[in-house]
């Protein structure tokens, strides 16, 4: 069971997408697991042939539990599903009650019905012979859950707890420092208006994509902000995977990764951001998207406030915030003019960087946004 967030302790295997004997390539989706962040597609991290599945659908297991055995190409058997050693080391001590690992006895009909009705098997009370869960148990659970008209793939209460745990840990362990600067967005917004004027509606860009790309490129100049904290030191990341905070309609948020953000064109980033937003809200993200981010960007949007000071998402070491782009008085060449301005903030881990480097980073973001056509 991969760790899909700093404070995830367990997940429920919902369905296997591959069976013993199936060949899998690194990155293939092999299973779906239910977590507080919704239904997540689990990608395999090696290539080979599935030898055996170790966890039955409907079973909740702790993070790090092997899910399947894969015979790697030209190698002895590997165990899939256990998080990498680094990720395991990052797993916080389990403070919640021990997770139920005994396999529940669930009839195939019940499992099928649960999938159809979207019922979480962990919430169903089994009344069948010998404590087995029947189809009727599932249907009773479905009706007694007073199902809302729309399916809610993400359970807000569970997600709230995950956010609470991650943010409490962050504030407890990470000595944050905060920097802020105002950025003139005149060039960026003018370029964007021209560009979007030439594009059909489906190809238009949002200014948020310019901000994300500017952050990714600025990280090349101040790479120590693109890292994860492991034990007692920062481990720099070669790849730049910007996590974007996406708010969900029923409350809560997730910050899935845009992989290799610095290498994507604005069009690619826009396409991926649209896809990521839609899947985040539908509750169908992939495991790598929830575990790979090397930094987070939170943008409050054009209907929000002017400044946001983020809390670092462990084990990352920085978070960049953007407020609303608003028309404000701005001095240019001795004249006060009206300009679209955005407040950019950096919250960073003082164990890893200091304000001098953080300042360089924000100034680089500013400089990059003055030449939007180069992004």
């Amino acid at each position, binding site marked *: 069971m991969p760790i899909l967030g700093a404070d995830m302790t367990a997940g429920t295997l919902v369905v296997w997408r591959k069976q013993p004997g199936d060949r899998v390539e690194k990155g293939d989706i092999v299973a779906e697991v239910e977590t507080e962040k919704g239904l997540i597609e689990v990608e395999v991290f090696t290539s080979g042939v599935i030898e055996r599945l170790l966890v039955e659908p409907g079973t909740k297991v702790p993070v790090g539990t092997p899910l399947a055995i894969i015979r790697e190409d030209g190698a002895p058997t590997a165990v899939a599903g256990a998080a990498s050693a680094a990720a395991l080391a990052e797993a916080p001590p389990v403070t919640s009650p021990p997770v139920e690992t005994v396999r529940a006895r669930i009839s195939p009909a019940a499992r099928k019905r649960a999938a159809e009705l979207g019922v979480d098997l962990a919430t169903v009370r089994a009344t069948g012979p010998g404590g087995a869960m029947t189809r009727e148990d599932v249907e009773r659970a479905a009706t007694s859950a007073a199902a809302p008209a*729309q399916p809610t793939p993400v359970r807000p209460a569970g997600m709230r707890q995950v956010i609470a745990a991650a943010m409490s840990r962050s504030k407890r362990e990470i000595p944050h420092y905060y920097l802020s600067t105002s950025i003139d967005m005149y060039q960026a917004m003018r370029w964007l*208006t021209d560009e*979007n*004027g030439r594009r*059909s*509606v*489906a190809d*238009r860009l*949002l*200014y*948020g994509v310019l901000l994300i790309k500017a952050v990714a490129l600025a990280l090349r100049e101040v790479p120590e902000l693109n890292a994860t904290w492991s034990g007692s030191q920062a481990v720099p990341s070669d790849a730049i995977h910007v996590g974007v905070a996406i*708010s969900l*309609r*029923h409350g809560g948020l997730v910050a899935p990764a845009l992989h290799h953000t610095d290498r994507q064109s604005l069009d690619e980033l826009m396409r991926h*951001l*649209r896809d990521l*937003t*839609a899947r985040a809200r539908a509750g169908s993200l992939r495991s790598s998207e929830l575990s790979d981010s090397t930094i987070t960007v939170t943008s409050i*949007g*054009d*209907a929000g406030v002017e400044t946001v000071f983020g809390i670092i998402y462990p084990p990352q070491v920085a978070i960049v915030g953007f407020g609303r782009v608003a028309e404000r008085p701005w001095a240019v060449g001795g004249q006060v003019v009206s300009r679209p301005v955005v407040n950019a903030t950096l919250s960073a881990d003082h164990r890893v960087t200091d304000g001098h480097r953080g300042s360089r980073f924000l100034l680089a973001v500013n400089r990059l946004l003055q030449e939007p056509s180069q992004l």
Partner: protein
Amino acid sequence: MTAEEITATVLEVLGQIAPEADLTQLRPDVAIRDQLDIDSMDFLNFVIALHERLHIDIPETDYPKVATLSGCVAYLAARAL
């Protein structure tokens, strides 16, 4: 296309974007974004969906004209075949 049909299409698209919203309570002359929890990505998806359904491409400069339900329906009715 009648104004009623266009209104129904607009409400259907909004329902997909903000499934939790009670659209019967939507006030026609108040900005949609002030009444529903809609961000810039949602609004772009709204405009894209209208384009797919009605084949009307709303330029960015016209976004203020489609900000309210009544404004949006009037805008689309003037351009719909």
